[in-house]
């Protein structure tokens, strides 16, 4: 993510040479060495260690009567995840909703990013303000807004009844959760797409069209392939955020549509079963990491393909 601003040639030198230089230079500036050490100590104690402790707790046994956990190691909680259909079903729901949310965000977000990249200054600023402000408005606030809009006797159903399509059950199922999450996560798709699109000169499209390609062909064969890095970045971001979301599924899905994050939170906050909750959290981390890794692999493949 960060490349050294100074001396870019340094990356060409081998790892060993890099260490060598660093050691020589750090002999001069001991403060840098001290600062690195301090930063690492701080970051490890505050960030790294809690995650490691979490992983360890997930292997401890739990006594539901005394609500305490011992230090004997066991695989019970992971076994419960594999055997118990409840947890697997919850993971399935999480994956399904996240997939739908990602696809919807792409379909809705692409035109917005495209218009932002190709429009004049005023329209671009306006769209930017709308997208960013929706990014910064509290998720709890936005989720309760959808509770009002999609309610059984809410405005959407009132409109549908007017045209005779009857009240639709929007809430406490995957539909409500998907709509709420698309609203929350759309900016995370639009912004990387916009970054990718703005770097494609519009002259490329014009060149394709002046050579006889229809606008839709120019779009499919020229613009879309060049946007691939943005699409992958946006899609991984939206998918991982969707699968780890808690507030939106808890309010709009409720107890009738439990996803994995809700079960994990309930284990900790209600059952006080820290080991079980930790195991579910670890599963969630693994799913997230696999998803990020897949995104990386696809991104690399796409880069190779384009040569």
């Amino acid at each position: 993510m960060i490349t050294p601003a100074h001396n870019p040639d340094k990356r060409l030198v081998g790892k060993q040479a890099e260490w060598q230089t660093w050691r020589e230079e750090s002999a001069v500036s001991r403060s840098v060495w001290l600062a690195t050490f301090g930063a690492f100590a701080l970051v490890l104690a505050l960030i790294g260690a809690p995650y490691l402790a979490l992983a360890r707790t997930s292997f401890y046994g739990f006594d539901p009567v005394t609500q305490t956990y011992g230090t004997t190691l066991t695989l019970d909680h992971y076994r419960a995840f594999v055997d118990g259909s409840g947890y697997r079903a919850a993971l399935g729901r999480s994956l399904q909703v996240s997939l739908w949310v990602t696809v919807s965000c792409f379909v809705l977000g692409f035109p917005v990013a495209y218009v932002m990249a190709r429009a004049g200054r005023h329209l671009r600023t306006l769209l930017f303000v709308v997208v960013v402000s929706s990014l910064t408005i509290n998720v709890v606030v936005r989720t309760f807004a959808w509770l009002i809009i999609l309610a059984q006797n809410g405005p959407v159903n009132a409109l549908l009844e007017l045209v005779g399509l009857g009240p639709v059950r929007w809430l406490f199922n995957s539909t409500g959760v998907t709509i709420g999450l698309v609203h929350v996560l759309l900016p995370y798709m639009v912004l990387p797409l916009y970054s990718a699109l703005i770097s494609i000169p519009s002259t490329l499209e014009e060149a394709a069209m002046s050579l006889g390609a229809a606008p839709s062909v120019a779009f499919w064969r020229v613009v879309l392939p060049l946007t691939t890095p943005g699409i992958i970045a946006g899609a991984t971001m939206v998918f991982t955020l969707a699968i780890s979301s808690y507030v939106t599924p808890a309010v709009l899905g409720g107890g009738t549509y439990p996803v994995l994050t809700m079960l994990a939170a309930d284990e900790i906050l209600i059952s006080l079963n820290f080991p079980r909750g930790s195991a579910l959290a670890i599963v969630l981390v693994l799913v997230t990491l696999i998803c990020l890794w897949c995104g990386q692999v696809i991104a690399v493949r796409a880069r190779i393909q384009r040569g």
Partner: protein
Amino acid sequence: MEQQRSLFWISMLTVTGLVVAFLVLPLVVIMGSSFTTDVVVDFPPRGFTLRWYEKAFALTKMQEALGLSLWLAFLATVVSLVIGVGCALLLVRGQLPSVIRGSLEALIMSPSIIPQIVTGVALIQWFIAWQIGFSTTSLILGHVLLTLPFVVRTTVAAFMTFDTRLEDAAISLGATRWRAFWSITLPGIRPGLVAGAAFAFLASFDNFVVTLFLVRGRDTLPIALYNYAQNIFEPTVSAIATVIIIGTVILLVLVKGATDLETFIA
């Protein structure tokens, strides 16, 4: 061909218009429903009254929650800025070997990548083990972890574009290292600092999931609002939500005057 082209552009514009409506709709509904004279939340609102705002401001639980949220966001932002500038300086100028730089950066950024619910569960166990449990200290530490990635990201970006020759010039003219840093470097990276501080403040003020695990016996505003709405879903909820929306917009407008947010988001 020209016709086809404008047709394509018009269809893109139409979808964009619909998406903008979709994004704005919930905000309109929340604000509108806060003025209804009805006792249940509905949209479009019936009549006009400000009594839900009166009721919202009179709730002691909400006052306390707002106080805690503002205090927490302020402290977390200040601590994050101090640590974040140090970390960014180390990452950009430290000339660290790529392994060390990479792992340091990965650790700092991990709370923004790992699901927040995991961070919450991990932190509360860790804090209980360290005997600081549900204290204000653990709340602040938790929020610093959450806000640090925002500060580091924007400050690193600002450091990368800062011309270090300005600093060298100050030093060659007789300024000490510290003096040069204070009077030349810090003002130079100010846009990054302001953007980072704004994101950090909002991230802390709006946080729900990690905070949920770290508070007991008191609430931050998002949690108080959530609990209140779960019990009594009346227009007071919309009134509180409207106040939060307006506060956020004011903060964004203020920040927009001091920095170009676009460079730090996209």
